[in-house]
């Protein structure tokens, strides 16, 4: 079962777990807005349509490559504050290594393959977050 969702509302991880826990092994990754570098608010913009298609391609690729019984990707958009969940990725497989590896794949590739942009406000000043070369490197190790 594949579920991808772009959400203006807070990500409800307990609800996502119900869909995800199909048996065997479940791995999840949750990205939270950092509270420790002075960020007051974070805002996520995306490319409607293209985003959902990119997430679906990633979930389908992971499902085929690691024989997943479930894969979930939920990404928050709009304004959010430190501590809130930006992204949730979950995988379910009969085997733990498959679930864990597919989960790492999904979050690494999401960072480079899905059209989201972060804008953060620190001390009243708003700036677009720069892409990180380390994210390109992390994504490249899966090809």
């Amino acid at each position, binding site marked *: 079962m594949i579920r991808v969702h772009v959400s203006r509302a807070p990500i409800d991880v307990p609800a996502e777990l119900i869909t995800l826990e199909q048996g065997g092994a479940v791995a999840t990754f949750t*990205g939270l807005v950092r509270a420790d570098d002075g960020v007051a608010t974070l805002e*996520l*913009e*995306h*490319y409607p*349509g*293209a985003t959902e*298609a*990119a997430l679906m391609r990633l979930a389908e690729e992971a499902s085929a490559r690691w024989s997943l019984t479930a894969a979930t990707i939920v*990404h928050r958009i709009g304004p959010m504050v430190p501590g809130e969940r*930006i*992204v949730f990725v979950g995988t379910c497989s009969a085997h733990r290594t498959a679930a864990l590896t597919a989960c790492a794949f999904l*979050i690494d590739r*999401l*960072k*480079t*393959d*899905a*059209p*989201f*942009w*972060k*804008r953060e406000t620190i001390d009243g000043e708003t700036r*677009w*977050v*720069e*892409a990180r070369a380390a*994210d390109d490197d992390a994504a490249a190790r899966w090809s």
Partner: protein
Amino acid sequence: MKLVYFAWVRERIGVGEEDVTPPVGIVTIADLVAWLTGRSDGHAAAFADPARLRAAVDQAFVAMDAPIAGAREVAIFPPVTGG
């Protein structure tokens, strides 16, 4: 052809989308960007550093040397920063 812009590309241009009809000779995304630069100061500011731009044709990521022939929607934006 519909053009869509995101993040600081959208902000500098001042609109999120526009319709254009590129002249003959505009073959690739890079050609398109160079041609668009002349449209306004905003376009010039958005496209000043082509190395910082990324693109999609009909909602799929492509390289800047990809052809635009037959495209209904071309998106131009900064490197993505989701997750």
